[in-house]
């Protein structure tokens, strides 16, 4: 049984191919088109998935879209009706988009797929899953659990913004829902907007900013804006928001409550923004923990699966894990809407076609999330040659040793190996790596390579077998979706003067023996690296450990600010030449910046709109 899942038309469009219940390929369209968060029909991703599976569209049994457009239209109309005459501003913006395009999504999907089909038999194969059903299916059916409580939280799909389902074998039954306009994702997005970041991409910046602040607005939020019940269910006072009727996230009443208009993105970040970030993060954690405790109590199932955009909040995930209401917690690595493509395919396979459940390996069914395109060594050499790169080809062990040499020297190393990751995180296939012990590494990577805000921390890739020696976590976290604290013996005690520092001033004080990955609150966003899913990356970190005693590397995505993660060796070479990265390793090809033709250096960062 071959099922193609598609998510598109909102943000992060993607495709995934499921063969007999196993994901064989999945990729986001942005990686091919080089347009961040590309929402257009994922033609390149679909073509890639079919090629990777060695099938044509006519061999596919079903094509499943990740949500139901008519239910979304229903939500819009009922919202406009309930709020009329307010809301005309949004109505007149939304209606042309719907009447021209979005009401015809079924026809648009069929039309886009038709050139890939010889038989022309496309429309009959189309199915539509519900948005939160897709999220829930992507979390449960890819998890290693036979039975689990599945919690999905995001901005909004059709009506649901939070849903709870019970997964058992090949079934998944929704048991609770919180509906539009009451949404934890939209609450977080409202504060993202208010603190001057871009909605739907700046949320992780708010999360990164939170540890610099004090949650002094938490009580105010819970008193005025969010009515939170003991079981975690919540109600948002809509008079503080503008998203149901207007074209911004927050209302004047919201601005009055928090003491001023939203920050202009060109203005510097201040302590107030940090305190706002800390406050919304604290409220989010409070809500998520109340929900998970209630679900553990109500259903008595020891396993929890998480998905939806809010499940990318790895700080909250780490708290859920440490709370121990559930024994095991598994988070879908593509928890955002891109993962809906995979979830929709799963929903068709198990829920529509009632196929028997398959759990593929002990870790989970995602193969480490390495579901994207790979390039053979000979192909890499051809492509780099055509791009004008100068490189040396080494044996596998030699390549690792030279990479470790570069890391020890303090180089930022571009690391392009094997199949690309599915989901927003780079997990050692399309990554930029560095030495976490180097006190300058965080600043160097942020300002000279990524061209992004200096407050943002980096994540460590740690050998799974050593993670407990360094961090207060005993479980695997293969997808960088859990935050845990550094163990006390690796921390550096603060002097009295340093303790008194406030906000961003804290950044320049090294807090541990691995300062590049230690956030100001001693936390780290951990990726455990497993021999079973990425043996080459594991071998690299192990070689670094053998030389230095440090079983981890700094890992950040291979891109600059505003750019999609690199997809091909040519993308990698361009990014390498456009930044101050010193070494690039693609397959077994090793490139040094000093040996390159400087004519290929370009003002790379100006090419991408800032996120």
């Amino acid at each position, binding site marked *: 049984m071959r099922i193609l899942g598609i998510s598109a038309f909102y943000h992060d469009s993607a495709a995934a191919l499921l063969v007999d219940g196993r994901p064989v390929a999945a990729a986001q369209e942005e990686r091919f088109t080089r347009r961040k968060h590309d929402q257009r029909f994922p033609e390149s991703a679909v073509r890639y998935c079919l090629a990777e599976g060695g099938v044509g569209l006519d061999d596919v049994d079903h094509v499943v879209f990740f949500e139901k457009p008519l239910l979304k239209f229903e939500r819009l109309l009922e919202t406009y009706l309930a709020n009329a005459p307010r809301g005309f501003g949004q109505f007149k913006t939304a209606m042309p988009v719907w009447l021209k395009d979005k009401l015809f999504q079924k026809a648009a999907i069929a039309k886009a797929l038709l050139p890939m089909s010889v038989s022309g038999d496309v429309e009959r194969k189309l199915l539509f899953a519900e948005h939160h059903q897709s999220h829930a299916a992507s979390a449960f059916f890819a998890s290693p659990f036979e039975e689990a409580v599945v919690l999905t939280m995001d901005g*909004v799909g059709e009506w649901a913004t939070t849903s709870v389902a019970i997964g058992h074998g090949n079934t998944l039954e929704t048991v609770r829902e919180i509906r539009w306009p009451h949404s934890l994702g939209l609450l977080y997005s409202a504060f993202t907007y208010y603190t001057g970041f871009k909605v739907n991409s700046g949320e992780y910046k708010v999360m990164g900013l939170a540890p610099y602040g004090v949650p002094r607005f938490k009580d105010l939020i819970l008193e005025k804006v969010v009515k939170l019940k003991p079981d975690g269910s919540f109600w948002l006072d809509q008079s503080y928001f503008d998203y149901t009727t207007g074209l911004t996230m927050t209302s004047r009443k919201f601005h009055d409550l928090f003491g001023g208009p939203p920050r202009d993105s060109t203005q510097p970040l201040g302590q107030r923004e940090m305190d706002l970030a800390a406050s919304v993060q604290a409220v989010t954690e409070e809500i998520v923990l109340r929900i998970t405790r209630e679900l553990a109590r109500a259903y008595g199932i020891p396993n929890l699966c998480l998905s939806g955009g809010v499940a990318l909040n790895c700080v909250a995930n780490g708290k859920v894990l440490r709370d121990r209401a559930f024994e095991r917690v598994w988070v879908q690595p593509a928890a955002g809407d891109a993962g809906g493509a995979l979830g929709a395919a799963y929903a068709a396979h198990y829920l529509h076609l009632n196929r028997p459940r398959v759990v593929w390996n002990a870790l989970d069914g995602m193969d480490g999330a390495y579901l994207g395109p790979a390039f053979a060594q000979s192909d890499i050499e051809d492509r780099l040659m055509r791009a004008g790169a100068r490189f040396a080809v080494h044996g596998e062990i030699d390549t690792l040793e030279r990479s470790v040499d570069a890391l020890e020297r303090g180089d930022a190393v571009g690391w392009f190996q094997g199949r690309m990751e599915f989901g927003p995180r780079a997990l050692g296939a399309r990554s930029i790596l560095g030495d976490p012990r180097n006190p300058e590494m965080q600043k160097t990577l942020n300002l000279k390579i990524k061209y992004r805000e200096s407050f943002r921390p980096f994540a460590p890739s740690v050998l799974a077998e050593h993670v407990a020696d360094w961090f207060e976590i005993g479980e695997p976290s293969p997808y960088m979706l859990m935050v845990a604290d550094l163990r006390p013996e690796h921390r550096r005690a603060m002097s009295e003067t340093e303790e008194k520092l406030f906000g961003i001033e804290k950044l320049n004080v090294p807090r541990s023996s691995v300062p590049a990955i230690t956030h100001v609150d001693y936390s780290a966003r951990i990726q455990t690296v497993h021999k079973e899913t990425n043996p080459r990356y594991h071998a690299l970190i192990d070689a670094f450990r053998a030389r230095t005693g440090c079983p981890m590397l700094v890992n950040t995505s291979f891109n600059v600010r505003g750019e999609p993660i690199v997809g091909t060796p040519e993308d990698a070479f361009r990014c390498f030449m456009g930044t101050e990265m010193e070494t690039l390793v693609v397959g077994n090809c090793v490139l040094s910046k000093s040996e390159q033709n400087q004519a290929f250096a370009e003002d790379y960062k100006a090419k991408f709109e800032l996120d």
Partner: protein
Amino acid sequence: MLSLVKELALYMSARRKWWLAPVIGTLVLVGGLLTLAQGSALAPFIYTVF
């Protein structure tokens, strides 16, 4: 277009929301006029709720 009308009818029957038919008719009419009057616009500061 015909298949969309058929789908809308199926949807209203499945959701038992026939009362939405005149609402859809009116709103589509107003929306249609708006569409004719202007090009599509993007909402820059809002989560993609529509």
